[in-house]
């Protein structure tokens, strides 16, 4: 394996792994806050049990997310030293703020996990909320740093030198808002559907119905609202990308030729050599409309961009299609759930629960696909239009071995986390039997 490819693969693997834990770590605290709130106000023991059961999951995910995040802060330098040498002082501002947010999150988590029966119940509840808010802030700040790589700002690039650095302007670059909104909503949608799916599975198995039904409802509430909002944010992001990164948009859409009334290409297999897409559905004028809000407007294709600056089209296009189709599917699921709120009988139907079990991993697959679009779509640049990824890679040979090592570690960790969660879920019976008996739906 060539070193440059190994470095990219290792970075992708590390980010792909971390993002799942980061999402769960920043969203679950809000679910817990709701059930915790219900426990404090209704004194219904089921909510206390849900909160406690979730908090154990969060402890596992947070620890894994924290260590994989620590790893990433080093990997940036280990794999991309030239990038960090130049970018560090420019886009470091969100990272230094994120350090604080992350720190507060760890402190609040200590209070929350170990504070049962130790503090005023509302103070304890509040520490859980702080975990969520600081987690969310961390996420937004890290995304702002990534947005800078897509939309570099806050410096002048003169003769290969980075001058007049303004870290604040770099943080508030043009892409940060649309990316932060899109990612935050995605985290809620993915985590909401994943958690709801696990509880739906347990309901299907007929276990501890009250416990799992209540947990399901809290999780899906967040998941459904987020999934309904996501298309709006997606549209905002797409228009943003069209403006700032035409090459990325063209790759997402496998849009090879610059043209007016550009068609939206759905599905298909892009052929990068022949510059066409086989077996695709083409909706005339729709791309122009989605990218620029006008059916006639010209959309830049890959033909106006020098070949050496083309991102890989097939990967970006496939990833984009996967993300969008899952997004649409989850939106439909959310509508089904809203209907089920009226037609209460649906909530106990097999097909209904099965549908949600099916959706368990989808949100996270969409998140991974979305990051693939962002990162692969920006290639060959690590800083869009300024520094090439290939020029930023470490001079150290043998990165392939490091990649194998990381792959093994992440594989083991994933297996371990799944194993632990299974055991946690199994133990629900032993821990919460006494609570389930007196309650009804």
């Amino acid at each position: 394996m060539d070193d440059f490819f190994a470095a990219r693969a290792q970075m992708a693997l590390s980010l792909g792994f971390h993002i799942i834990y980061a999402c769960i770590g920043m969203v679950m605290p809000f679910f817990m806050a709701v059930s915790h709130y219900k426990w404090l106000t209704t004194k219904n023991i089921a909510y206390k049990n849900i909160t406690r059961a979730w908090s154990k999951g969060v402890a596992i995910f947070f620890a894994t997310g924290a260590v994989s995040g620590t790893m990433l802060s080093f990997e940036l330098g280990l794999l991309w030293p030239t990038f960090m040498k130049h970018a560090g002082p420019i886009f470091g501002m969100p990272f230094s703020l994120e350090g604080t947010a992350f720190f507060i999150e760890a402190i609040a988590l200590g209070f929350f996990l170990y504070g049962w029966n130790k503090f005023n119940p509302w103070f304890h509840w509040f520490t859980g909320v702080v975990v969520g808010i600081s987690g969310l802030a961390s996420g937004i700040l890290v995304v702002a740093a990534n947005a800078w790589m897509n939309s570099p700002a806050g410096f002048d690039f003169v003769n290969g030198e980075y001058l007049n650095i303004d870290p604040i302007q770099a943080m508030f670059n043009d892409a940060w808002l649309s990316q932060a909104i899109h990612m935050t909503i995605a985290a809620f949608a993915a985590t909401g559907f994943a958690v709801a799916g696990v509880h739906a599975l347990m309901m299907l198995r007929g276990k501890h119905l009250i416990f799992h039904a209540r947990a399901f409802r809290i999780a899906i509430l967040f998941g459904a609202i987020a999934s309904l909002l996501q298309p709006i944010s997606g549209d905002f992001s797409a228009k943003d990308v069209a403006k700032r990164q035409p090459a990325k948009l063209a790759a997402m859409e496998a849009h090879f030729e610059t043209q007016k009334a550009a068609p939206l290409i759905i599905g298909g297999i892009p052929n990068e050599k022949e510059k066409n897409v086989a077996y695709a559905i083409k909706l005339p004028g729709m791309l122009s409309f989605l990218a620029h809000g006008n059916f006639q407007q010209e959309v830049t294709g890959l033909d106006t961009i020098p070949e050496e600056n083309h991102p890989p089209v097939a990967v970006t296009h496939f990833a984009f299609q996967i993300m969008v189709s899952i997004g649409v599917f989850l939106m439909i699921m959310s509508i089904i759930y809203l209907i089920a709120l009226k037609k209460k009988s649906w909530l106990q139907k097999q097909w209904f629960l099965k549908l949600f079990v099916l959706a368990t991993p989808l949100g996270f697959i969409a998140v991974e696909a979305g990051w693939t679009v962002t990162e692969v779509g920006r290639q060959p640049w690590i800083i869009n239009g300024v520094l090439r990824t290939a020029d930023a890679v470490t001079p150290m040979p043998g990165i392939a071995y490091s990649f194998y090592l990381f792959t093994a570690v992440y594989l083991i960790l994933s297996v371990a986390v799944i194993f632990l969660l299974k055991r946690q879920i199994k133990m629900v019976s032993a821990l919460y039997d006494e609570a389930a008996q007196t309650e009804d739906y």
Partner: protein
Amino acid sequence: MNYIVIAFLFFSILLYVVLGGADFGAGILEFFTSDRNRNRTRKTLYHAIGPIWEANHMWLIIAIVILFVGYPVIYTEMSIYLHIPLIIMLMGIIARGTAFVFRHYDAVKDNMQYVYNRIYIASSFVTPLFLGIIAGSVMSGRIDHNANTFYEVYIASWFNLFSIGVGFFVVALCGFLASVYLIGEADNEDDRQRFINKTRHMNIVAVACGILVFVAAQMEAIPLLNWIIFNPVGLIAMISATVSLVLLWYLIYQGKSIILRPLAAFQVTMIMLAISYAHFPDFIIVKGGNNYSLFEHHAPEKTLHALALALIIGSLFILPALFYLYYSFQKREDLHS
């Protein structure tokens, strides 16, 4: 502004060594505990560090962020030449954090506990060892810009007697810090006595390793002794550390446990001060001169300004919350009986 950022860098590294170090030490102590007492020790340890360990490790993140934002050239240099020990240290951090949490949150307590414990203990040893090796390599002058073989560039930079000596010194220091910390956390006299004994042993080992570091420095022609002796701050810090050693042993015999904590922290602070001031403002000593100095290789003024501001505002949030966390979860004397 540069001074403010340097101060934050120093304190976050120091706090990581003291707090994170005590944390690592807990795992090292577990290794040196007889099977008979191991479960009890593990319980004490869990109660003592459970709520605070994640916060303790945040100091490393703060330090690394300061380095890559404020001193990107230094961060890059370390990332390239010390790639291998950094990777090993990271593996240790991952293994340790997850094993610690997994062993507690595994709902079924079966043979898996054995696996978690093994990983936890091994990584509690490896992580500070390589942290020390990295610290040693930074000042060993083995980083060589003119080297061209893989061995010379990526291995000789850290694989030498001095760096490894510093590694073992840091391990011993962690064990020492943890035993001092746990004296105050023990919930019966028997355990307390055990931790006091551990403190004695670990202190002897740490002093021995410290002497070995000086010997290794002499053998490898690193002017460590000169740096410290011909530098007033270094000399005073070194003398304070030595004098407080006598005081420490006196207090151990007197059976005073709580005052031992600040004293142990003071010793580590003095050692850190002596070592880092010795070659200040140079951060990385490079073979043949051209050292990487905190005064010359920093980010532009505007970045340092923003960084300092972020750190000051951040600490306004972090420090009170952190103190309250420690305060809330410390073992109180009134609960003792």
